[in-house]
């Protein structure tokens, strides 16, 4: 292993350095092939359309480091938006509907957590089941209808930017949330415990870490954050539909794995995940500028994800 390279007091692993190189390469390619790439409007579109989704990479990183996975995030994303819409349709006030929607999202995460922890089921199969269940509930509530009758202060908040800067209002709370959780994961008590659980759950349990409680908490956190993201996204696109965010779990999990988080748990840094997020956003924006169809984009992200887990394996076999 080459020693990590010191860069302004941040230790970069070789993996993170190669991500940085890839980001530079894709930005350069964007600059060379399209004059619209590094403009403030394209930057603004990229930021405001992805910052909401970026929220969801926080709990996913934590979960994968703890050795679990949550495939139902995209369904909770859809369900919370639909619940909000359904409650508004029934005539409740916006704030009350918001509370209902977030409760549903938190409850959804709680169901995942209890099934995984109390019944000792693999989180993978549980969350595939709830992926179907929560998406199905969203369809039951709203069917094929689309709801867009949101109050204007809500849509204004989720759509508009700070003055003429490329930064959306939503990017401020998202960025703060991501930063706090990144620092807390590497320095905070729970953060260190999550790493311990991911490296060896039995040893963590014998070291007086409440592994069950922390893991249930992580699933609730994942549900809540997916719910917040789903609601903000509904405001951003001004539509709540049952299929909001379908297939989003792939991008989220892909970003976390491309960021160098170990799929066996216990290893990974938030910095890498953040770099992976920037890389995927840059690539997506580049492809959008060249009108690359979404099916090709999905293929590329899926391929990148497999490559990012395969490359370390191939290298370690040498």
């Amino acid at each position, binding site marked *: 292993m080459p020693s990590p390279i010191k860069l302004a007091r941040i230790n970069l692993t070789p993996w993170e350095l190669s991500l940085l190189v890839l980001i530079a390469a894709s930005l350069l390619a964007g600059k060379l092939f399209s004059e619209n790439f590094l403009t403030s409007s394209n930057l603004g579109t990229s930021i405001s359309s992805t910052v909401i989704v970026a929220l969801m990479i926080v709990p996913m990183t934590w979960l994968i480091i703890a050795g679990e*996975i949550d*495939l139902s995030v995209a369904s909770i994303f859809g369900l919370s938006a639909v619940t909000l819409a359904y409650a508004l349709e029934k005539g409740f006030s916006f704030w009350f509907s918001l509370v209902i929607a977030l409760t549903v999202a938190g409850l959804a995460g709680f169901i995942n957590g209890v*099934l995984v922890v109390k*019944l*000792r*089921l*693999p989180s*993978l*199969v*549980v969350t*595939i*089941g*709830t*992926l*179907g*269940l*929560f*998406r*199905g*509930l969203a*369809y*039951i509530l709203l*069917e094929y209808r689309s709801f867009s009758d949101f109050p204007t202060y809500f849509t204004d908040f989720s759509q508009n930017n700070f003055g003429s800067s490329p930064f959306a209002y939503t990017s401020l709370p998202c960025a703060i949330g991501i930063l706090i959780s990144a620092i807390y994961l590497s320095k905070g008590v729970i953060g260190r415990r999550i790493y311990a659980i991911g490296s060896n759950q039995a040893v963590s349990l014998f070291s007086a870490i409440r592994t069950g409680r922390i893991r249930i908490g992580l699933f609730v956190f994942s549900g809540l954050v997916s719910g917040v993201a789903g609601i903000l996204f509904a405001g951003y696109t001004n539509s709540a539909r*049952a299929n909001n965010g379908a*297939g989003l*779990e*792939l991008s989220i*999990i*892909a970003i976390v*794995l491309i960021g160098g988080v170990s*799929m*066996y748990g216990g290893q990974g840094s938030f910095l890498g995940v953040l770099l992976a997020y920037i890389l995927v956003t840059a690539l997506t924006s580049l492809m959008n500028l060249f009108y690359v*169809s979404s*099916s*090709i*984009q*999905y*293929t*590329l*992200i*899926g*391929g990148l*994800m*497999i490559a990012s*887990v*395969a490359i370390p*394996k*191939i290298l370690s076999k040498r």
Partner: protein
Amino acid sequence: MPNVRNRGKSSGFWHEVSLRFPSFPLFLIVFLLIGGFSIKSDRFLTSSSISQLLISASIIAIVGVGEAFVLISKNIDVSVGSIVGFSAYFTASIAAKNQSLPLPVVVLIGVCIGMILGTVNGIIVANLEIPSIMVTLGTLYVFRGIDSMIVGSNEVTAQFLSKSFSRISSWTFLGLPGMFFYAVFVCICGWAFLQHTYSGRSIAALGSNITAAKKIGINSKKLVFLVYLISGGLAGFAGVLWASRYGTVNSTTGFGFELVVLAAVVVGGVSVNGGTGSIAGVFFGSLILGTISVGLALVNVSQFWVQAIQGAAIITAISLEVVFRKRKISGRRSDAISN
């Protein structure tokens, strides 16, 4: 010899049934579902509804047998929906362009397409020992992406297909649809392979304890590759049947089908922790899922409920398994060990 040892203290008839015919509760559920639906709707017990039920259950069962192998080896394959769609489109378009191709060749093409895609999964999972969920979640989108890249907005519809292509699935025997016999054939082959061949037993051994299996000389790489090959091949076969039965195939064919298949397999009692599972269970699990989807449509329950019920079925099945396993281990330890 659990029967002999437990004689005298066992609970009698039901205990005997549960030993000799472990899928009996599933059979009971199918029976109750059919009974319930036929009371609710007088159109349910007609020959057209029953054959519709058998056809949808058959496609689930064929893919389910492959998925069961994968789960028993303690892996998972969530890319089967994409493989079904891939194989369905390409087989149908090849059959539409070359009307004179003999039917066995057409079927073989579909199976081969499925096997090639299964090989991709198998090589990555087996050789690089990457968790199968990461690989197959990736290939779920890669296969679907390549499929829709090539297909675009094209569609193969029944009018382009020859009469003979639809004959792959449309024949009947004794009033039962031919699809049902394909499923029964696949299930019998799967059962024989799993229970009575060295490789089949090794797959179960691998799923229950991979370290022990490797120590007694089981080639885990070869077997993991094999289960993905089988799963891909069967999904490819199901794709051909899908195209032949429904006639219209586009880039969304089979989307989300992995959820149905997983539901059928875990409802059928295949353990998500690997090692145990029976093909008879998969067969009845598929019948349950098929009955629910056809039955709900007939009793005027909106189709929107179907996905939620499939998800709930998975959750209920895996939770019940844990509850029963706990009771079995604490209450009848001798049975649990001899099983």
